[in-house]
């Protein structure tokens, strides 16, 4: 059965601002799920709070719109209890890198097999445009009373430092590339992170669609804009850790960190780092609990006719005097 993109859409009215980058992201997720033919009931989209938080309502799969900053704990809990589910978590950059930054780091360490997308626009849109953790120092987007006084966090570098085993960046207006990146991320066994550049047409009047396209930077000879966005794959960049050795890993981590610092005139998209050799959480757990994947928490039988079928007699025996 070939899945239809329309099957993954709900009829809930979408109230994002006209021109919002979020539309491209939700389309890319729907296209990716359809292309992978993931049955709707086997997928769950978890979201944080903010504009991006509403994403779960626009997808016709299990949708869990959680708390501000807490999407990763909710999503990990679901995946760990039912590893058969395909779990995609989404949230804004304030959600994931501000209030939720602790969870971001801890999730990287766990490497649970799921995908996390940050809709990265540099502002807190739903509360009227305050500076978010990815807004560059000194920028004054239109609703800020004063320029941003904080350094920005580098999401790609933070993900790499935290142990994410798949780190990539997409662009909300390149839906085809984003769809392919989402598919690669979902298929990756382990925690995959996608930093999605998502212009906020209402509050971020600096990092706009035109800015990313280089409309402010016209080539004098060709008279064409010089786009800031480029694809890592187009410059022969190889993100994959091929050999399970510290040297190989260091080399790949280092090149990814260097790439992650590119901004202003050249902004890379695509996969920065991919390590399939690091065990995912479920693999580590299976070493402790051999039948974890075959008999996970969600599918364990616990009762028969209202009676407990768990045998705790050995544990009780050790306590008997």
């Amino acid at each position, binding site marked *: 059965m070939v899945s239809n993109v329309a099957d993954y859409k709900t009829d809930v009215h979408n109230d994002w601002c006209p021109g919002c980058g979020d539309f491209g992201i939700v389309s890319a997720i729907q296209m990716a799920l359809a292309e992978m033919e993931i049955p709707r009931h086997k997928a769950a989209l978890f979201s944080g709070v903010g504009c991006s938080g509403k994403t779960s309502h626009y997808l016709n799969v299990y949708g869990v719109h959680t708390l501000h900053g807490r999407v990763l704990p909710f999503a990990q*809990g*679901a995946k760990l209890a039912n590893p058969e589910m395909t779990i995609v978590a989404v949230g804004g950059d304030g959600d994931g890198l501000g209030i939720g930054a602790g969870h971001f780091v801890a999730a990287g360490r766990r490497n649970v097999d799921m995908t996390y997308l940050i809709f990265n626009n540099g502002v807190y849109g739903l509360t009227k445009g305050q500076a978010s953790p990815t807004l560059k120092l000194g920028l004054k987007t239109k609703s800020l009373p004063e320029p941003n006084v904080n350094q920005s966090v580098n999401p790609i570098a933070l993900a790499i430092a935290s142990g994410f085993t798949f780190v990539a960046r997409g662009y909300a207006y390149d839906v085809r590339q984003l769809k392919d990146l989402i598919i690669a991320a979902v298929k990756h066994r382990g925690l995959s992170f996608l930093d999605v550049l998502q212009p906020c047409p209402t509050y971020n009047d600096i990092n706009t669609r035109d800015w990313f396209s280089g409309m402010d930077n016209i080539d004098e000879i060709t008279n064409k804009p010089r786009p800031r966005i480029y694809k890592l794959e187009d410059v022969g960049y190889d993100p994959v850790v091929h050999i399970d050795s510290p040297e190989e890993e260091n080399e790949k981590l280092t090149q990814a960190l260097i790439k992650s610092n590119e901004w202003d005139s050249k902004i890379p998209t695509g996969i920065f780092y991919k390590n399939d050799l690091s065990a995912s959480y479920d693999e580590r757990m299976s070493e402790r609990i051999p039948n974890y994947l075959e008999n996970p928490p969600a599918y364990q039988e616990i009762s028969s006719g209202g009676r407990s079928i768990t*045998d705790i007699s050995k544990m*009780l025996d050790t306590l008997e*005097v």
Partner: protein
Amino acid sequence: MSSIDLTWVIGGPQGGGVETAANIFAGACAGYGLKVFGKREYYSNIKGEHSYFGVRVSDKIIRSNVSGITMLVGFDAETIFRHAEEVFGDGAIVYESDLAAVKVDEVPTLDAQFKERLKKHLISKNKPLTIQGLLDESKERGITLYPVSFKEILANLSEETKNPKIRGMFRMQNVLAVSISVGLLGLPPETLLKSVGSIFSRKAEIAEMNKTAANYAYNFSTVKYSKFKYQLHPIPKEEHVMLAQGFQSTSLGKIACGCRFQSYYPITPASDESVFLESNEIFEVENNRPGSTLVVQTEDEISAIGMIIGAALTGTRSATSTSGPGFSLMAEALGWAGINEVPIVVTLYQRSGPSTGLPTRHGQDDLQFAIHAGHGDFPRIVYASGDTEEGFYDTAKCFNFADIYQIPVIHMMDKFIASTVSTVKRFDPTKITIERGKLLEKIEEPGYKRFVPSPDGISPRSRLGLENGIFWNTGDESDESGHISEDPENRIYKMDKRAHKLELALDKIPKEDQAINYGISDFCILSWGSTKGPILDAIEMLNAAGYKVGFIQIKMLHPFPTQYIQSLLSGVKKIIDIEANQSGQMGSLLNEYLDRKVDYYILKYTGRPMTCSELFDSIKKIIDNKAEKKQVLTYGV
């Protein structure tokens, strides 16, 4: 044979093996059929601060500690300084003889306030400010002194066994001290040796060495000293008695009732439970594949509760275990579980707050917080266990409540229960039931909606992964499908639907699960949680002294069983509220819900659990009409 009821206390620096010693002693006594009730007190510290373990031993059922010590054992000066005054006039002190000259000011871990009190006491008795001074004063009170040179015993033992290592094994002092005590108390050595063996069962060589030491010290004491005035003796042993710590009850309850996911962030005194679960993560399941509990240590308590909500959405019975500070962090997510009708269980091992408070001490400080935690109106059940045994069965009940009413349940436990070691009847898993309410296993037709109206207000619950069962959840108010809705009429429907669960719970949960009536009298105690043990023991003492007092233990604190409690109190003249907190938090509930007010309060908030002795005194005072409206208990160091 005369009845047995004595309290043996061992103290020492934290990390020095006091707990091991106490467990050996408790095991030695319990092995001969005796009932034991032990509690551990310790500072928030890894090594060096004073910790002690008091074990009460009796031939009849005991549920609490008494004020006072029958036999004090100490191989450090602090133990003697701290506890000598608590020893009964006909009691005994077993101590390291080298310590006699130690001055009060030479013990850096004695806090200034305590030093001042102790010095004043010694000066008033005209004694030098040393261990010897305090021991002399004790002797004058009638106390028997047993000076022991542990160093010498180790040296002799080392020579006899031709094992030079033993000479320097000061950690073995604990085993020596227990063994000497058991000898002085006249109990045969067999269960002592068995207990030593089982405590060190993981290392055969260490076990053997300790058994040799135990045997040596036991014989040493019986030869060297005359028998102590109070003697223990074996009594007929009941079958299927366990020596269990409180935290083991909720852990075992969780395994038995099918909790398969637990996440937690380390916190005293709750994390022992999670560590136990992880240590026993794989278990047998009848006619089935081995089962397992997935235990996840999270980055904080926000993540801990977030994860269990995610896991609960898959239909897995899920729980977290925490203490006050951690529960504070969980408040927001608790509301999310409330608005989305997700069944989760939070096992709340209370300690003394506010803030970090007394982090390793007891308190029932979080009742009002558990009832009100989180913003906005949403229903939850707050259910409190009174002791270790209740902890096991109540855990299963809490999961049933969560599943049936699709509601967060906060299971109130506390540090007193968590660190109590006592003889309890073996838990019986056949006595627990597993009721999953309207959790769906299959949905045949499309068109499922998570929050459809139903006669009892509880909607059929799908789970992640179920075909035709797709639903949406959101922290926003939502419609029947779970999509965001700010419609005023929908808001009324959803708020009322959720609130109705409390009425339903009050209606459906059996009265005997809501509160336990131990008898009604003119004077009636109302209490909750771990005060149960000291209260029941105090009532026995009061009855023996010719006083009558009733007692109702309220287990379901929210929703509050107003009508039931009201009906029980119809003939009662005076209500006595007993709680381990400063403000009388349950008393506030009584004043709020009942058509009468609390007459007397007995409160304790030193961080130390109540003893039956101090409750006996304070309740007696009330009945004798000699009590103030509020009495504050203070016993314990």
